[in-house]
Each structure stands twice: as structure tokens, then as C-alpha cells.
């Protein structure tokens, strides 16, 4: 207890000082705007809505079931259902959101909306550079700002996206196979009914069901 402890400590700081010039572990600074720490695959910040195809509004997977709205712990999601239905990826007619707002000034990035979504429609984004001086205009994200293509989903969460795509494709295949079988079984009987239904429908069916080109995950 005569100063050795202090000298030991100073040796340690000197080691770090000198080490900072040659040892990467002793100079851990990542100069942010230029260099960025690569986002982790599971990283999450704010939710976004996945859409398939080119047209974001038409390709939204969201069916406005409002489960996420209900389950969102801080209640930052707001959805109004559109009365017009549109076909989903398997061709089934589903509701779509007329309004889908997320207030990221409230969002706590907990991912529960993603967990409860049965349609794989809402996912977590990794973008964090959302700061700005406009609280109400800049941080209330509407459906257009939330919609991002599936390819983007693939770039930020490749493994998860591939898994989701696989699941959706399998489901679609199953539904299609079933539909085909049904169609074959009831080909004749259904023909008339199908024609009538098609005639009755106001909006022409849009081909929004094909998932965007599957990007093979990096690993």
C-alpha cells in the first residue's frame, strides 16, 4: 500500500494508451456516420409493413385484422379497415387497411406486433435514423411510409425472410393444390357459379399474390 497500486494502474492505462495505436481491441471506436456497425440479423427498431410486388398499396400483406393494434403494449398502432377487400397471396379475398398508422414517437420496439401477426405482414425494421425536428409530421408513419418491399425484408433479415417466404409458398402451394383438386372435382358444377361471382365483383382481381422474387439468403 505504498503506491504500487497506483503505479500498476498507470501501467494499465499506459498499455491501453499505447495499445490504441496498434491493437484494434484497444481502440474500439467506430466512426459512426462513415463507418457503421453492421446491423444484426435479428435487430429491431420500428415495425414496417411488408408488401409483395411492385405496387406497395396493393401488395400489402396486412389484412387489417387489428390484432397488432390490440396487442401493442404502448398502443401506438392505429388501423381503420377498408371495406373493399382484395385478394391475398393465396387469392383469398381479405380486408385491407384504409389507415395504418404507427406513431414511432410512442413505439417501444418490442416486436409483439410481429409475434402476434398471423399474416407475416408486419416486421421489424433496422433503420434508426429517424430523428428530426418535426414531432407530429415526422414521427407518425402512415401506411405509405410503412410499406416496404419483401426484397427489403430479405436484405435486413435474410434467414427469417427466407423462412417466411418458404412458409408462405408452402401454404400457397397447398391452397393451390387444394383449389386445383376442388376445381377438378367440381369443375362443371362450379363453372357457372364462378362466372357469376366474377361478374358480380366490382374490382377486377389483381395479381398481387405472387411473392416478390425470392432473394436467397446470404448464408
Amino acid at each position, binding site marked *: *500500500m*505504498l503506491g504500487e497500486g497506483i503505479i500498476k*494502474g498507470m501501467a494499465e492505462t*499506459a498499455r*491501453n*494508451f499505447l495499445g*490504441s*495505436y496498434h491493437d484494434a481491441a*484497444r481502440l474500439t471506436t467506430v*466512426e459512426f456516420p462513415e463507418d457503421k456497425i453492421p446491423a444484426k440479423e435479428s435487430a429491431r427498431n420500428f415495425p414496417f409493413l411488408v408488401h409483395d410486388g411492385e405496387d406497395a398499396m396493393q401488395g400489402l400483406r396486412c389484412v387489417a385484422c387489428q390484432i397488432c393494434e390490440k396487442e401493442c403494449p404502448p398502443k401506438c398502432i392505429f388501423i381503420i379497415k377498408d371495406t373493399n377487400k382484395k385478394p391475398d397471396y393465396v387469392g383469398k379475398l381479405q380486408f385491407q387497411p384504409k389507415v395504418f398508422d404507427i406513431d414511432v414517437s410512442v413505439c417501444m420496439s418490442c416486436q409483439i406486433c410481429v409475434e402476434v401477426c398471423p399474416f407475416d405482414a408486419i416486421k421489424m425494421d433496422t433503420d434508426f435514423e429517424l430523428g428530426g425536428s418535426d414531432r407530429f409530421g415526422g414521427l407518425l408513419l402512415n401506411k405509405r411510409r410503412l410499406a416496404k418491399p419483401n426484397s427489403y425484408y430479405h436484405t435486413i433479415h435474410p434467414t427469417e425472410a427466407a423462412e417466411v417466404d418458404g412458409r408462405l409458398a408452402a401454404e400457397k402451394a397447398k391452397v393451390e393444390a387444394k383449389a386445383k383438386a376442388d376445381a377438378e372435382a367440381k369443375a362443371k358444377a362450379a363453372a357457372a357459379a364462378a362466372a357469376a361471382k366474377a361478374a358480380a365483383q366490382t374490382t377486377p382481381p389483381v395479381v398481387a399474390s405472387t411473392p416478390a422474387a425470392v432473394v436467397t439468403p446470404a448464408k
Partner: protein
Amino acid sequence: MIADLLNGIGLLLWRVVSDQPDAKGALLPVLPAVLQPVVSAVLSVAPIIGVFASLFALTTLLERKGLGRIQNRLGPNRVGPFGILQPAADGLKMLTKEDIIPRSADKVVHFLAPVCLAVPTLLAFAVLPYGRNLVPLDLDAGLLFFFAVGASTELSIFMAGWSSRNKYSLLGAMRAIAQMISYEIPLIVSSVTVVMMTGTLSPMHIVEHQAGFIWGFIPHWYVLTPWGFAGFVIFTIASLAESNRSPFDLPEAESELIAGHLTEYSGFKYALFFLAEYLGMFAISGLGVTLFLGGWHAPLPGLEWIPSFVWFFGKLVSMVFLFIWIRGTVPRLRVDQLLNLAWKFLLPLALINLVVAAVWHFTAVWTFPGALVVRWLLGAALIGGPYVLLGSALSGAKKNTLRVYRYAT
């Protein structure tokens, strides 16, 4: 006339760079006789203020970068190339910042405190020898002058803390005074050893006494003698405390007293405190260099061709770096420990060091072979023993030890 003037300036600069005596003599004769004394004084004063003000700017940056490196990061590097303009930006901002004086404060004293701190601190630079022929003021009692102006800064810190009428400031001011008075004694007594050896209070002569080399390569600096080393250590510790640097930064202890005596200072008054603190650190480091580290002398025989002031400033910056290094390592003392360290450890040790120095002096008559080594060992034993005893007494009084822990499974 103008040509003469330019010529004179050129010659002056050349004489400074080449360590020639009477640099001012190169310029003064060109001027009218009336102006000569004043210009002579200005020529001494202006460079000092200029050099140390820029050194201050540089040091704040180096400190931030150095601490950064110690802490595994880069430190300021965006403002200008390598962040070199960071101090300029800080200064500019401070200048344009609003100046708040608390309503209940003693406004006159509040205003005077930073000025009263900065002025004596700057004055202390007058007596330091910066180079072989660069002494602004060679006073017979130069060292005493240094201590006297140093002592008069204490009141200004008290003024700052008291006038703010803030509780933290008052506590900080009281701590500041207690600390500075306590460490002033070890500081002076440890310097006295050097005075004993050189027989002068003039810093210039003290440096001259440290010229030459033992055995042709070991510089004849006092820090390399047992008493000089002990004195240097005591001096360094005391000067850390005198300049309120970590681990003696109690007056502005951030985690306890917000900013201590500076809590209520904003704008450039705050910057002035900051400046004065750094200038004080330079001054006292400069004195340490002068007393113990051979002043402007080169460390090795072959290096005398380098201008002497380069050595002086090199050593000064090394001292400052040591201060920064310590700051990056150690926690802060508590006020009672601080006082104990001063009165129960440093002061006795400094007094004993006087005896060691005397023994060193009186044994200089020994001429047998290896006498130097024997004297050295004798001196080391004389100061080492009390060091161990006093040190153990200091930490042992409270039974401070490293502990062994037991475990339950």
C-alpha cells in the same frame, strides 16, 4: 527605419532560435530610447502570454485526445484536421455564450474572482527560464516571487466559491483553500532542497547548476539524486494538488459538488477559470522542470545543438502529459485523506528530505572510488526508510489492506 526594424526583428528571432544571449538587444537599439524599456518589457511579456495561451489551447485538445486514447477511443477529431480547431470552436462559443450571474450572488466579487485568479497565475511565468538566454526576469528572489504569486491565487478561488452564494460552491471553495494551503508547505519545502544545493533563489542559476553530465552521459539533473528524486515526487504530488488536478480535484469534484466553486460560472468567466487552471499547471510544471529536471538542458551530451527552449517545452509537455496520465487513472481522494497526505506524509517527508540533501552535500568530500554510488545508496536509504514508515502509518492507521474473501458454496 522600417528596414532596420525588420532587420532587428529578424536578428531577434535568429538569436532566440540559436540560443544567443541578448536577443532583445538585437531590436532595441533600433528604437527610440524612450520606448526601449517599455518595448523591452513588452517583448518579454507578449511572447509568454501568446505561447502559453496557445499551449493552453493545444493542451486542452491533447488532454481530450490523450484521455480518449487511454480510454480506447479517438477523442475530438472532427473540427478541423485532426480536431485541431476544437479549442477554437470552444473558445468562440464561450465568448458568445450568455453570462449568467445569480441574483443573490455578490456580483463584484463574482466578477473579480476569475480575473484575480488569472493575473497572478500569468505573473508566475515571469521568472521561469525558458532557454539558455531566455529569462524574462531574473530576480534574485525569483523562486520566492513564484511562490508568492502562487499563494495569492488561493484567495481568488475562495472569492469564486463564496460569491456565488451556492452551497456547492461554498463547500468547493472551502475545500480549495484547505487543499492549497496544505500542499503549499510541502511544495516549498521540497523546493528548498534544491535551493540548499545551488545556494540561490534565482531559477536561472538553479538551471545553470544542473549543467553537465556525470560520467559523460548521465545529466546532472537533481531528479537523479536521491534527495532530488524524493523532492521531485513530493513536488509533483503537491503541484497536482496546487493546480487542483485529479486526484486532488476536490474543489470541483463533479460527482459530489456538481462543479464546486465553478458551479455558477458561465460564459467566458468559466473559460477564464479553465484557462487559469491550465496556466497554473504549466507554471508549476515549468518550475518542476527548472528545479529538478535540468530546465532547458539537453538530456544527452550530443543534443545541445537543439535550441534550449525546445528542451524546456519538451519537458514541460511531458510533465503535463504525466498529469493527464494520472488524471486518466486514479480516483479522487477524500478531503480528510487529502489533508492527512499533506500533513502526515508529504510534510514530514519533505523535512526529512532536507536532512538527506544536507547529508548528500556534506558527504561530497568523500573521494574514494565508488563514493558516488555509496552516497546515492545512503541517501536512498535515508529517504526510503521514512517513506515506508510514514506510508504504512498513513494507510495502516485505518487498517487499509487488500482483503481476502471467503466463499460459501
